[in-house]
Structure formats: C-alpha cells, structure tokens
C-alpha cells in the first residue's frame, strides 16, 4: 500500500473519531474539579506536587545550601514537567496534560541558584490570554475546545529538556521540540528540522551517539497514523536523515533504546474502545495482542526487523547491549495496563490512588538469530525514571539508577534513589517518608574514565516542609546519602525529566 495514502486514510479515520463529537460535559461537574483537588490537598499535603505552579516565571534566587558541592560538579540541571493544570475552575484529569515549566538549577562556586519559567508555547500563550483552556488535551476532554490546526497547536512542551548543538530544547512527544534561551529560559519557538517535517512528532527521549549526534523517534499514534518517524540529527544540529517505519496496527511508543548498531522501538498495541474524546481516554492497551518490536539498523532505516513479545506497557527504556546476535535492553515495565494509561490519575483528581504503580525493572532479550524476544524480570519492583552512565558497554555494563519506593511513604510516590548492578545488587538511599523523589541524572566526574564514577543530581519535594530541593549524591556511594542539598523556600510541581549541562 502507498504509505502516504495509508497515513492519509488513518488520519482521516482516527482523528474524525477523536474530535468530531460535540462535548456535553461542560458544567458544574467539570468546574468542580479544581475545587475537589483543593479539598483533597487540605487532607493530603503531598498532593502539592500536582498543584499549579504559583506563577509563570520564577526569577533567579539562591537556594539554601546544606553540605558542600563536589569540586568537579559545575553546570546547570535543567528540568521540565507539567505545571499548569487548572484554568477558570477546570482542572485536567491526566498528569500529561499540564503545560510545561522548565527549571534551571545552576551549580557554581557561589553555590546553587534556581530559576524557572513556563514554556510559552502557542497553546500556553493563547490560553493564558483567554483565561481558560481552549485546545484539546491528550488525556482530558476539554469542554468547548476549539478545533486545532494541527498537533502542534496542542503542544505543551512538558516532558523533558535537553541541550544539543548549543540549543536548549523543551520536548513533548506529539509534535515539535521547542527551543528556549539557555540562560533566561525564554521561549524562542518550535524547531523545524526540515520544512516538510515541520510539526512532526519528536519524542521526549532522544539518545546521544558517541559522536555527539542525536537519534530520536516520533510515535505517530497521536496524529492517527500507524507508523514511527525516525530522526537522526548531527552534532551540528542539522538533520542528517529521517525515515518513516510503517507498523501493521495502532501502536503507542514513548521512548526507545539503542545499541551501537540498532534502534529498538517497541510499539504497544491498543484499541480505540475507550470512552471520551482525548487520545489517552480512547486508547486502551490491548493485553491479548503482543507488543511489536522494530529492530532498526542505524545504517539502513528502511530495513527494520520485526519481533513480538508478550504485551506490556513501557514508558522508559534504559541501556541496551548487543553481542553475538543477542540484544538486551533494560526498561521499567508497567504490569497494570489500565493504570499505565494515566499514571497518578488519583493525584490529578485530589485523591490517593489505591496503590502505587506496579512496575518492575526488566530486560527485553531479543535473539536476532532465532527471531525471538522475551521479558526477563529480576524482581526489582516499584521504580521509575531509569538513567544510566552512557559510557556503559557490553563488556562493562553500568548500573541503572532510578527513583524507587522504600519503606513507609506518606505519598504514593518514590521516596528513595536506587542503583542496581547488572548482577542485581541494589544500593538505596531513602530520603524519608515525607519526601517525594524525582529523576536524578548521572553526571560523570570530569577527567574520570571509570564507569559509574560520578554523581547523581536531581530534585525532591519535602512534603513536611513544603519545599523543593536539589540533591547531589556520589553515584558509587549513594547509600551514604546526599553530599549536598539546596532548598527553595517553596514547593514546585513535580516534574518528569531533566538534563545536566556540565561546564
């Protein structure tokens, strides 16, 4: 079948279903959502992590430093996450809907300072001016939404942030990357890598090649197509090549893994049987159908090999190795396919989710010679936001660092950082029952070459003291606790992913 004709047809079909019905939800039930969250927040103080940011711009301010910054650790931790959930009494019901706010934590000889700013996407600007949400969202039915020109009209730039080729980029997954000023965080606008690829999906999880070039994918589920776009951007920031990998059915993908030779892209099958008008409301993972895995040669993007594996939901892939025809890719697998569609949905409504996410750090083992793929679990449960030392290789494989739940916790959210060796040995630092622990980035020690020699730098939210802080741990001795903490006088909404820019 002609691919473009194919894309055209699926677009017509899926988006028609997505956007045609008039919405009958506007009214008191909707407008009560913000009030319900406010009531919930009074009873459950940890919900502060899902509260609107207090304002759209936070000017530079010093953070109160406890301990001492390591001598070699200088730079900026950028972080991104949804931070604007409510307007005019209406509150989004899906965490992924909030508009993005980018934070910059600067670590220098004077200590730690912080600034933050909402990403001024066209969506944010239009809705801020109107005083209400105007556009369709990915996980919530917005009453009386206006028609979107295209997917970028809905772009919230809320998922991750990277620095590449001298540009700071706030990332979403259903449309363009958004360029920001690396110093004052002001929004420069959406990036077009090539005119015909303007507004094409660009995932929030690009991976760096050793030569400084960047690989990324764009899942096309949101624009109704059964395909994945592959991007390869040079170290100079110029697009080298792109390709569309057609899939046989609807498949959702959030991130991917790669070895030296291959990209590994797993598509999670879903049906459109759900209720509601937003993408995640309609989308339901199909537990009967296997996940499809495309193993794509980096030097032949048009020649993917396809594999199947037992149904699973994965948002985050970590490292991957390849040797003698065996690929081993590590990932955080979600066992509850219903909950995986809307993580922390209770928190968005102002209530405690009955249980935390049922997750497990697993390996996906792909046998290229025998055409098989299988999951291998080692019982490491309850973590998310995996990161790793990118210098990790097959011969010397590094640790996975991730946020985990350890012991009693006030919130249904990770309260600790763990490092897991390839042999399964685990080291943990537990921040405490009142602390919610966000992603920590691995930062290699300058001049060092030993794997896992470096620091973990991330943020936490102390529910008891209602404040957000930066933490720095020695990656090889994280069980000893932070080398330094730097606290703001207030709590920020919890974010998703960050990037450490070393100076």
């Amino acid at each position, binding site marked *: 079948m002609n691919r*473009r004709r194919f894309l055209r047809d699926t677009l017509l079909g899926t988006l028609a279903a997505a956007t045609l019905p008039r919405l009958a939800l506007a009214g008191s039930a909707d407008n009560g959502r913000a009030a319900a969250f406010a009531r919930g927040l009074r009873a459950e103080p940890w919900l502060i992590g899902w509260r609107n940011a207090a304002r759209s711009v936070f000017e530079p301010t010093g953070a109160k430093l406890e301990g001492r910054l390591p001598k070699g650790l200088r730079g900026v931790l950028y972080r991104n996450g949804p931070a604007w959930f409510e307007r005019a009494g209406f509150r989004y019901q899906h965490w992924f809907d909030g508009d993005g706010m980018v934070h910059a934590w600067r670590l220098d000889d004077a200590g730690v300072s912080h600034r933050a700013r909402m990403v001024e996407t066209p969506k944010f600007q239009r809705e801020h001016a109107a005083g209400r949400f105007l556009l369709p969202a990915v996980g919530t039915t917005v009453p009386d939404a206006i028609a979107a020109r295209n997917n970028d009209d809905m772009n919230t730039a809320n998922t991750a942030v990277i620095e590449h080729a001298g540009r700071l980029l706030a990332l979403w997954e259903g449309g363009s990357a958004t360029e920001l000023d690396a110093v004052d965080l002001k929004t420069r606008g959406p990036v077009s890598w090539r005119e015909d690829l303007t507004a094409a999906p660009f995932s929030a999880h690009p991976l760096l090649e050793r030569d400084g070039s960047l690989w990324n994918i764009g899942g096309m589920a949101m624009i109704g197509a059964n395909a994945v776009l592959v991007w390869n951007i040079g170290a100079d920031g110029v697009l080298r090549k792109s390709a569309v990998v057609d899939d046989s059915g609807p498949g959702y993908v959030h991130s991917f893994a790669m070895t030296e030779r291959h990209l590994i892209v797993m598509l999670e099958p879903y049906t459109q049987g759900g209720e509601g008008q937003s993408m995640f409301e309609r989308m339901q993972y199909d537990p009967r159908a296997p996940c499809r895995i495309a193993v794509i040669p980096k030097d032949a993007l048009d020649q993917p090999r396809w594999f199947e594996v037992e149904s699973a939901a994965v948002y985050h892939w970590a490292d991957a190795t390849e040797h003698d025809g065996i690929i081993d890719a590590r990932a955080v697998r979600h066992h509850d396919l219903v909950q995986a569609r809307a993580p922390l949905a209770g928190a968005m409504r102002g209530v405690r989710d009955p249980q935390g996410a049922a997750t497990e750090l697993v390996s996906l083992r792909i046998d290229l010679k025998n055409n098989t793929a299988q999951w291998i679990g080692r019982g490491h449960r309850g973590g998310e936001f995996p990161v790793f030392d990118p210098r990790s290789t097959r011969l010397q494989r590094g640790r996975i660092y991730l946020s985990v739940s350890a012991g009693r916790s006030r919130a249904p959210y990770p309260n600790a950082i763990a490092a897991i060796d390839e042999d399964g040995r685990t080291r943990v630092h537990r921040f405490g029952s009142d602390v919610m622990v966000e992603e920590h980035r691995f930062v290699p020690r300058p001049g060092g070459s030993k794997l896992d020699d470096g620091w973990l730098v991330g943020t936490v939210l102390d529910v008891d003291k209602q404040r957000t802080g930066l933490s720095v741990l020695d990656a090889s001795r994280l069980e000893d606790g932070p080398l330094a903490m730097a606290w703001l006088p207030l709590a920020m909404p919890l974010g998703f992913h960050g990037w450490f820019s070393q100076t």
Partner: protein
Amino acid sequence: MTTLFPCAFFALAAFAATAAQASELTVEITDLRTQKGAVMVALIDSAAGWDDGSKAIARRKLTPEGDQLTLQFADLKPGQYAVQVMHDENSNGKLDTNFIGMPVVEGYGFSNNPRVMRRAKFDEARFEVGAEDQRITVKLR
C-alpha cells in the same frame, strides 16, 4: 502524492460567477492569526464538487484587515452549500502542509466549524440556504 489538502482544493484559478436567484449568504471569518497574504474563500454546492476541490461555484480572495473579515455571496438558489477558507499567508496560492499533509503554518476553516484536525467532509461542513438571507461564521484554526 496524495495529501490531506490537495493543492487544487484552494486553487486560485477560475473565479466563477454564478447565475442568480434569491438569497444572500454573509460569511464572517474570524480568528485570523496574522495580517499577511490573502484569505481565499470557496463556496461549494455538492459533495462531488467538495471532493474534487476545483468545483467551487464561487470564490473570493480578500486582503486581511484585523482578525476578522466579512463577505457576501449573492443570489444563491435554495439548497445545500459548504464553505472552505484558507489563509494563504505567504501568497503562494496553496495551503502549505508537511510530509503527511498536515497544514502547519497557515490557517484554514470550514462552515459549521467541525472539530476535526484535517480537511472536513462535505457532510460535516454543509448547511442549508433557504429563501431567507443567511449569515454564518467560520473560525480559522
């Protein structure tokens, strides 16, 4: 290449005038995002004409002034009609789209303002014109 928005859809050629009967249709176009280029409006009276893209019974080309515009189509026979609007900001005579045919930098709209992120179908955009004059609003997206 087949796209969501074939070039012929808003072709500039043939500003056809139509034969007359009774009603006048006033079209108010709102939500222009810029003042650049031209706004092109096509009035179509059949599903076949809509799908073909080149069978408009009347076309108008207007210069943006402010964030809205108003125009009239006079002497319309009673029947079914649909309107499509394109804001050709760079004056190249077409609605610019990306690799899957998604309009990326220029506005467009349809009568009835159906909430679809693609070219509307005739059934979604059609409306009835009777013996009385009529006024519709097309919101550009």
